[in-house]
């Protein structure tokens, strides 16, 4: 879909997902790594569990459908070469600390002078400008600034993140979206622009608009294990089944209440709740709780009953019931269960990608969507460091002698 377009990806671990999204969509993406390799290659886990710059699974997960060149941007020749590459590119992604590329003379304005059509998309913790733009930051601190962290975890322990860092992925997704939106502006008048994605602003999406609660005058939300507390109302979804964990979406209101009604009917049939419990007004239950007509301990008793019912069944029994009776119950899947999911298998989701040198086949999570006319293909494995120096610099008109000279000088 994007096959006519060239992308330069200067990103590190913070932004490499964005370039991969364009690569999946067919663009020709060249990852520009410092000599010695991208810092993202130093993030685990590693293939064979042995740290190795060519074996970082974190790197592999973000860099398929890309070619790799090395380039030392902290040299005059490196800057010159980057400008020559940028002159022919349609998109450039970067995720350095704000101001770093400017300090090298290749910030947005300088790149615009070289190529006014170029779209530059930046990923950073807080955005390119502003009082926190230059704050030292990491995934965890950016997530902390977004409120998403505050809403997750057990109420007797600190807020907690996911084991796979997420905040820069949110920003990278938005950088890719922003770059394509900017492309439609460029189609009108041929001009590029600078897209500024922020891990803070992007991760705020993961609060379900509860960041607006104070401004709207509604009760605050707080964290609880496997669910959330809305003011005094505890909503716990995660319960222990006989052989692991399941999630039971136990919510109320005109849209979600009917699911809870069916859940209670099922539990009644199996003797886990009495007639009075299953006949509660689940459509109006939040208002009953907030007005005090329904005491909070009654809600907690229902949550406990759900827990007891789950414990009496296996994950699969509960999931099959959910499919048959339109309940909102799913297993808390492990990566092992995800990889062996019958649903994903039937959809031929997993993709075998052949890596070279050493040759091996690696199973990857598949395309993010299925396109009927122009399907996504995983045509390139994640590259070795500088694997494509010869072809990329060759195409730029550097012959072998010149390339060897640049190598000797530490530029590539």
């Amino acid at each position: 879909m994007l096959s006519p377009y060239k992308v330069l990806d200067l990103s590190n671990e913070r932004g490499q997902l964005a370039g991969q999204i364009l690569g999946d969509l067919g663009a020709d993406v060249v990852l520009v790594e410092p000599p010695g390799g991208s810092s993202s290659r130093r993030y685990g886990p590693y293939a064979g569990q042995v740290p190795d710059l060519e074996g970082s699974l974190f790197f592999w997960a973000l860099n398929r459908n890309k070619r790799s060149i090395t380039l030392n941007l902290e040299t005059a020749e490196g800057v010159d070469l980057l400008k020559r590459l940028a002159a022919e590119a349609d998109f450039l992604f970067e995720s350095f600390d704000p101001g770093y590329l400017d300090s090298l003379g290749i910030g947005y304005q300088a790149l615009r002078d070289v190529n006014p059509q170029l779209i530059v998309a930046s990923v950073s913790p807080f955005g390119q400008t502003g009082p926190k733009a230059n704050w030292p930051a990491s995934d965890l601190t950016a997530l902390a600034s977004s409120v998403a962290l505050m809403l997750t975890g057990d109420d007797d322990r600190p807020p907690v993140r996911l084991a796979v860092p997420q905040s820069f992925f949110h920003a990278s997704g938005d950088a890719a979206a922003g770059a394509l939106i900017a492309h439609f502006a460029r189609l009108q008048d041929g001009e590029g622009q600078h897209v500024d994605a922020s891990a803070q602003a992007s991760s705020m999406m993961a609060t379900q608009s509860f960041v607006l609660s104070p401004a709207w005058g509604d009760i605050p939300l707080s964290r609880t294990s496997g669910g959330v507390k809305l003011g005094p109302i505890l909503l716990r979804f995660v319960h222990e089944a006989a052989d692991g964990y399941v999630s039971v979406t136990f919510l109320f209101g005109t849209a979600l209440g009917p699911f809870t009604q069916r859940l209670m009917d099922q539990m009644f049939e199996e003797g886990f709740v009495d007639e009075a419990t299953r006949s509660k007004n689940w459509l109006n239950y939040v208002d009953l709780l907030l007005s005090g007509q329904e005491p909070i301990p009654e809600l907690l008793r229902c949550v406990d009953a759900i827990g007891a019912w789950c414990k009496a069944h296996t994950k699969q029994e509960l999931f099959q019931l959910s499919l048959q009776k339109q309940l909102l119950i799913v297993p808390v899947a492990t990566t092992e269960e995800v990889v062996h999911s019958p649903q994903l298998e039937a959809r031929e989701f997993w993709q075998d990608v052949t890596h070279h040198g050493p040759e091996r086949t690696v199973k990857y999570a598949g395309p993010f969507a299925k396109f009927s006319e122009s399907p996504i293909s995983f045509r390139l494995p994640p590259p070795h460091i500088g694997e494509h120096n010869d072809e990329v610099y060759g195409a730029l008109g550097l012959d072998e002698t010149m390339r060897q000279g640049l190598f000797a000088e530490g530029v590539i």
Partner: protein
Amino acid sequence: MTEAPLKGIHVLDFMWVMAGPAATQYLSQYGATLVRVESASRIDTARTLQPFKDGQSGPERSGLYANLNYGKLNLALNVTNPAARPVLDRLVRWADVITESFSPKGMASMGMDYEACKKLNPGVIMLSSCLNGHYGPEAQLAGFGTMGAQLAGFGELAGWPDRAPAGPFGAYTDYIAPKFTVVALLAALEYRRRTGKGQYIDLSQAEASQQFLGPALLDYTVNGVVDSRAGNTSQEFAPHGVYPCRGEDDWVAIVCETEDQFAALATATGNAAWATDPRFATHDGRLANRDTLDALLGEWTATRTRDEAESLLIAAGVPAHRVSGASDLATDPQLMHRGHFGKVSNAELGEVTVETSRMRLSRTPQVPLASTPTLGEHSQEVLSGMLGFSEDEIVELVAAGAIE
């Protein structure tokens, strides 16, 4: 002057709840024309979800709904009423893009699946977004992002190793899938621009979200290792955690990724000896002794407010940030600088706060904030102005119950 980037792109939007409307909101923010079809007999679930204006529930009072739908045109159409057919036909012909997030078969039952729409509009792009994709043994699972998050594998990875899974918060896949929906639609529009071909896009929210779990999935497919929740620890760095501060439920996140940052942390917290302490002097030592280090660092933070801890550490060059709650954001100087929050209004709500676009585009910013629509607010405008129905025809549509 350059027009808004997506001006002239017509989107017929049957999406509802979160993952769908959050995606089409991006298109609306940058100039596409969105017609949201909504039925009074089956209102959008988002209208039943918090936060509510002044804490009072009601279909026109949801902040979630407003945040995801401001700027869109709202057509109240009972799609199951046969009399609605001519309206649907003209909408399909009008559209460049049709989006829907019903469970599979929803569109087919309305006679509106891709094949049917393609007959009316051969170049149309249609995107279906549902929990599990449009085919497969579990495709019919009715579902919300709370479930997608668990099916996709996020829950197992959120929380403490000695306890049950704690998260992720809410309908997590609904917060990821929209970004992929947007890029999928824009790429398909670009492809159609060059080739004239429309297409059908089947986006499983669970599959799209797995792009955010790549390293953990590879750890299993390559190493056979089943990753699990690990608190706030990192495989790469220590300290890496959330530490208690003075005050109720007040916390600060602190991370050291480099030797310089750790040396600065040691100095800033009055523990210069840490830099030479054999337990902490090396990167590997800090990883091996992370629990001890966390406890010592926690003692330091516990005697300070989160503001004190944050400002001391930032001044020293150490990554740190208070764990913000929603009530902190109105005064977050960075969000104020970025103009992240804006105001929209409508007759039912008066003026309310919403979030603006999450990105900033230097040359073509988000279009000016428009009102957040009430149900059916734009029915007349869409039917008459955009689709060319006469006044008499509209009266008939209303009488037949097609227009609500």
